[in-house]
């Protein structure tokens, strides 16, 4: 499916009808997670050229003229495109939070904007230097930047995160032993929208670990 076909799909009334039954933003995201075309969109924006195309589409839709007494006609599709980009390249659309006059009539896109802001805050706190670790009983584990969760797929390791206590950056990681879930679209989206809660008691300081 081409990016233009994806645009047609997400901007069609049938898609809007489906997603406009969500009773909460969590349900909105849940509907997206089950949507095969959204998975295709997320995969597509991994290519920078497609990510730029989607960003341009957001900006085009935001500029559409409409009666400000009513909802923005492309609220749903703008939110969908934002969520796809938040997962891959949130900095690409950071400008949507900072530059220009506010756009009225949005609802779902405002939740997406909040997700974007939260994601950017997390990124600010990350030590994004790539680290190489070795754990007992595990092999070939590399911790990449937060955006590269696809690559953090070594057996037994699911999530990598970092914090910045005080001035000294300190990478922290967490090993989950819950059936070794792969970083699927579902658990990556869950990560973006707040379901993941670091367990301080189980997290281990990188500096406390010794390679080998």
């Amino acid at each position: 499916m081409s990016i233009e076909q994806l645009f047609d799909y997400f901007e069609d009334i049938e898609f809007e009808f489906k997603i406009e039954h969500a009773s909460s933003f969590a349900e909105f995201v849940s509907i997206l997670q089950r949507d095969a075309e959204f998975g295709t969109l997320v995969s597509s924006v991994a290519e920078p050229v497609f990510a730029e195309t989607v960003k341009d589409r957001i900006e085009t839709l935001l500029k559409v003229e409409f009666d400000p007494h009513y909802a923005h006609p492309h609220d749903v599709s703008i939110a969908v495109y934002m969520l796809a980009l938040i997962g891959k390249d949130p900095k690409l659309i950071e400008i949507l939070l900072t530059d220009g006059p506010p756009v009225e009539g949005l609802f779902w896109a405002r939740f997406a904007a909040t997700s974007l802001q939260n994601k950017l805050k997390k990124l600010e706190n990350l030590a994004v230097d790539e680290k190489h670790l070795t754990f007992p009983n595990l092999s070939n584990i590399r911790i990449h930047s937060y955006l590269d969760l696809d690559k953090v797929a070594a057996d037994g390791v699911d999530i990598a995160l970092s914090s910045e206590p005080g001035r000294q950056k300190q990478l922290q990681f967490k090993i989950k032993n819950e059936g070794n879930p792969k970083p699927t679209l579902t658990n990556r989206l869950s990560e973006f929208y707040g379901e993941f809660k670091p367990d301080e008691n189980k997290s281990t300081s990188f500096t406390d670990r010794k390679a080998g």
Partner: protein
Amino acid sequence: MIIPLNDVESFEFPLATKRGTPIPNLQKPEHSPEKARTLIDFHDRNFQHLQRRSISATYNCIGMVFASRRTFVDTKHVKVLLAEDGYRKIAEFEARRGDVIVYRNTVNNEVVHVGVLITEIPDEAEWLILSKWGPGGEYFHKKRQTYPLYLENVEFEYWTERIEL
């Protein structure tokens, strides 16, 4: 162009439980008349067997039941609304007109939908329910005649705040 922030903790309208706990809410902008007509046509094609009461977008099911159709309230606030508005859980056979049906997902124990019991359907031992489907239409329907999303791993609960002597 800036997209304003918002989240489920916004307090757009003064809304609180009977005990005074503030309930976050956010009014969704109304559909334009053109969009509303398109949605009505679409609803009619897909749910022609159901009677629609309204196509208003400003509130969801929680807003319909607990906020007089004024605003959109996240489903996660149903727990405190039930607890602090004097509701108690009852068996289906105890339910009466005006009581509330809660759709709960048994996998995550989260409320996904609520509606109001309107009347018992003669000869069917079933309730006719009025509920709002997200920002979509407000419908009269049987409990399993609703949007499929609400029916995944669902269990039905009946709640009332009736005071009877």
